[in-house]
């Protein structure tokens, strides 16, 4: 891995030097920091410490036009969406970047999902190592770390006056081509500073969950009556799933009239009763506790068994945002205890 140094005050020049691509970054302003397209780099104020902004929308937008249609003489004409433009995402956290590693097999295995894949291929991820993990973070428990480079093309770490730049992939190297003159080689002392910064961040993480063999424990725990109580607090909203960087369920809807319109995919949440309800009104997962159980099973058992990854990156958003403190660490710990594992 190539390492470089970037003076902090040259950050905006660095971003401009990437040239000719769409830039998406966490931009402060208004009531809440949002991950959005940056029109004017000079005017933008980046908020690299904000942690609630969801980032999965970069690859998996909440609304995605799948195709447009219009009725023509004696039939229907379908117009596919254009390939997304080259994009650089700046300031994504290592945990959020790891989420794409878990989503990749889902969207590309068996059937290729062109919408996700094309965005993924067109996007370079420049991460920002997490300096201030919060009191809900638990990324080490799921195999991540505040300075993980997994899924990233480039990682910047704040080491005081400069950013320590790790160029992780060939794609990252290519993207940084135009900014080469702003970078200088990292010295041994910088390396040490970087290590110290990483250690400091890692030490700030205080919550954890034991996931050893969780994919085997959960199926055994499926029929436990205690799920009813564990899920009793849940109010069935979509706050956990919509803010989760690895939740990927979606709904497909048509908009417009039979003469003209679009087919659209939008996020959906397994915590809503409508998610599974049949047209006949029959709902295989009627109770909120059944839906909560399914979410846990999916993330920590089904998904790892099918695709090899735990579908959780330990960002803690679901824990922080849940209106009723339905805490997955607490749930998984209780389940493990109940199974005497």
């Amino acid at each position, binding site marked *: 891995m190539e390492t470089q140094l970037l003076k902090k005050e040259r950050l905006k020049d660095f971003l401009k030097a990437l040239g000719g691509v769409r830039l998406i970054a966490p931009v402060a302003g208004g009531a809440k920091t949002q991950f959005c397209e940056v029109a004017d780099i000079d005017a933008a104020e980046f908020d690299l410490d904000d942690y609630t902004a969801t980032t999965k929308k970069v690859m998996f937008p909440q*609304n995605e*036009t799948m195709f*447009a249609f219009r009725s023509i003489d004696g039939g229907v004409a379908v*117009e596919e*969406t*254009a390939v*997304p433009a080259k994009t650089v995402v700046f300031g994504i956290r290592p945990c959020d970047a790891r989420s794409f590693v878990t989503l990749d097999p889902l969207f590309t295995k068996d059937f290729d999902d062109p919408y996700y894949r094309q965005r993924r291929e067109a996007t370079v991820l420049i991460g920002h190592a997490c300096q201030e993990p919060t009191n809900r973070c638990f990324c080490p428990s799921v195999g991540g770390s505040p300075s993980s480079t997994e899924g990233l093309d480039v990682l910047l770490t704040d080491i005081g006056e400069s950013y320590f730049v790790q160029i992780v992939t060939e794609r990252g190297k290519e993207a940084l081509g135009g900014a080469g003159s702003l970078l200088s080689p990292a010295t041994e002392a910088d390396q040490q500073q970087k290590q110290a910064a990483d250690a400091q961040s890692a030490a700030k993480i205080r919550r954890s969950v034991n996931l050893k063999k969780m994919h085997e424990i959960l199926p055994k725990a499926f029929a436990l009556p205690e799920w009813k109580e564990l899920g009793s607090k849940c109010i069935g909203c979509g706050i956990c799933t919509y803010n989760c960087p690895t939740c990927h369920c979606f709904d497909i809807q048509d908009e417009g009239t039979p003469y003209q319109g679009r087919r659209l995919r939008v996020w959906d949440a397994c915590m809503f009763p409508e998610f599974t309800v049949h047209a006949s009104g029959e709902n295989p997962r009627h109770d909120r506790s059944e839906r909560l159980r399914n979410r846990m099973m999916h993330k920590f058992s089904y998904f790892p068994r099918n695709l090899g990854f735990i579908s959780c990156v330990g960002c803690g958003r679901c824990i922080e945002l849940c209106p009723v403190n339905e805490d997955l660490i607490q749930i998984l710990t209780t389940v493990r205890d109940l199974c005497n594992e």
Partner: protein
Amino acid sequence: MSSFEPKIVAFLCNWCTYAGADLAGTSRYQYPPNVRVIRVMCSSRINPAFIINALLEGADGVLVSGCHPGECHYTSGNYMARRRLVLLRRMIEYMGIHPDRFRMSWVSASEGAKWADVVKEVTEAVKVLGPNEIKREQAWMQPSL
């Protein structure tokens, strides 16, 4: 002003205003052709979501018209509608939609002339406001993020 011709959706109660509008026609009162009439059985049939939905679907103004207070075919439907819709009008104004985009009126079956006046007034007011700003996106190939 420009040649902007607003689209106005009018929900008319079957018993009074719809008949009033009919009378306006047979009496040959002239009024602007901008209203699109939807007949409902009573003004209290109007779900506030209809009104906002009409604006979203591209109407530049919405008009709800029913029987005068005390003259409802169903005794008190228009009183119920009045509570709801007066409040709704205040709310959408608070949310940044000009109150002239949503009006209510009482027009009885015998008030053909009043109907013509109401339509004139509403149309003129909406014309001044120009096209409504919260129309739904109908550009189907809009890229996401």
